[in-house]
């Protein structure tokens, strides 16, 4: 079931005018910022489908930019997000894409600073609910509904076991786990949804594993 809470239906409290094109967009932006781990210096945003056709009227652009600056869906600063980003020196580029995507409300965001960048694809599925379906070329399904740990690792035997051993040591229960890879034997991404928020000590321990190259957490 895609919708688990009554507050997915009665909610969110948000700045209008569209739950999918405004609130959902803000959440995609916010998730992008969280995955990046800090405020970006620049972001290139591409809109597809209904997003591309109607983003101006729905404020989809300002909502995503607001999300990149960590604004919630009901933060009135969303209305002025473009101006605020400009004042902060965040460079934003927006493109309207013609190509068809599986979901009509799709945005691809590349964001970064002098120390690095990430690229992700988010979809807004209705009522403000979103999913991140691609991260740096890896397929995944991240809803932001649960705390989660994302682990980029070498695609070889023992990697999943090594990570789950660390989680077990910290008494962390795994609610859902996905592994996706680009090519056999190269890099892979583990997406692990857990029940409680993740402490930094655990992240450090995961980072120290020989198979692991990168660890990110998503808080609830």
């Amino acid at each position, binding site marked *: *079931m895609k919708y688990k*809470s009554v507050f997915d*239906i009665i909610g969110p*409290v948000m700045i209008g005018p569209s*739950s*999918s094109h405004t609130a959902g967009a803000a959440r995609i932006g916010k998730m992008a910022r969280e995955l990046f781990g800090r405020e970006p210096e620049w972001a290139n945003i591409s809109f597809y489908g209904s997003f591309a056709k109607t983003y*101006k*009227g729905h404020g989809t652009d300002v909502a995503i930019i607001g999300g990149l600056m960590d604004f919630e869906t009901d933060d009135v600063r969303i209305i002025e997000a473009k101006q605020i980003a400009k004042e902060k020196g965040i460079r934003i580029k927006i493109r309207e894409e013609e190509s068809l995507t599986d979901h009509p409300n799709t945005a691809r965001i590349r964001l970064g600073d002098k120390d690095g960048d990430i690229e992700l694809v988010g979809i807004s599925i209705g*009522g403000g609910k979103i999913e991140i379906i691609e991260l740096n070329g890896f397929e995944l399904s991240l809803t932001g509904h649960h705390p989660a740990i994302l682990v980029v690792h070498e695609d070889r035997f023992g990697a999943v076991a090594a990570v789950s051993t660390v989680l077990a040591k910290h008494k962390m229960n795994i609610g859902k786990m996905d592994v996706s890879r680009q090519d056999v034997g190269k890099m892979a991404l583990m997406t692990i949804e857990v029940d409680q928020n993740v402490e930094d000590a655990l992240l450090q321990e995961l980072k120290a594993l020989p198979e692991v190259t990168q660890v990110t957490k998503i808080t609830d």
Partner: protein
Amino acid sequence: MFRNVAELVELAETNNKKISDIMIEQEMEVRNKTREEVFDTMERNLTVMEEAVERGLQGVKSHSGLTGGDAVLIQKYIESGKSLSGTLLLDAVSKAVATNEVNAAMGTICATPTAGSAGVVPGTLFAVQNKLNPTREEKIRFLFTSGAFGFVVANNASISGAAGGCQAEVGSAAGMAAAAITEMAGGTPSQSAEAMAITLKNMLGLVCDPVAGLVEVPCVKRNAMGAANAMVAADMALAGVTSRIPCDEVIDAMYKIGQTMPVALRETAQGGLAATPTGRELEAKIFGFSLNKKS
């Protein structure tokens, strides 16, 4: 966890509970929260809805200038005493309009189930409260009952205009409201399901064709009629009228109609009212381009 309306109604009726009870208990279990926490969160949403209606009834105007002020016009007309369709019905209509006018003006609202359809549930609630005199708790329960039916639609069909057209947004909202009105008025869980079915049947096929892609024309007036539809369907269900097609099958029909709906009629501003000469003219004026250039 209930997966469809039949299970929801059965859970309520076999345990001698209300639909709102079932939704509240499920929320407590899924989110691991106390009853008080769940109620508090919903009360905050109720407060946002009250503030939005109040603001809309004072008169707002959207940035594009396409919408705003109609809620005030309808209220004044009600006061004139000339209303043909009845004070309570028109009050629901004006309050649904009020919320959506605030939404169009980029004001703060609570999505129910979406922002574009946010007027129907609060509009009907704040109208029927004048007749039924509910307690604060009963008003919060109204939102849980609405949410329970919306939950089923969202999981078995869609609540997105881009995926399923306006029937998935205002259609769902109207069905949710009808079910909640029925419970508040003392109807049984089965009657709530009938009210939802009757409402949604009359919203099937409704396309999402917003002029200039803005959540304004025809969205605001579709919320008005969604509220009216919900009120009438609730009355019909309370009178004992039932739907020959069960609620779950109506929801499924809505889903399948949405899947076969052309993309031009699913929130792309390419068909329907958006593609009328006046719709195109308004679009050109709002975004400042010439119609000749845009083939």
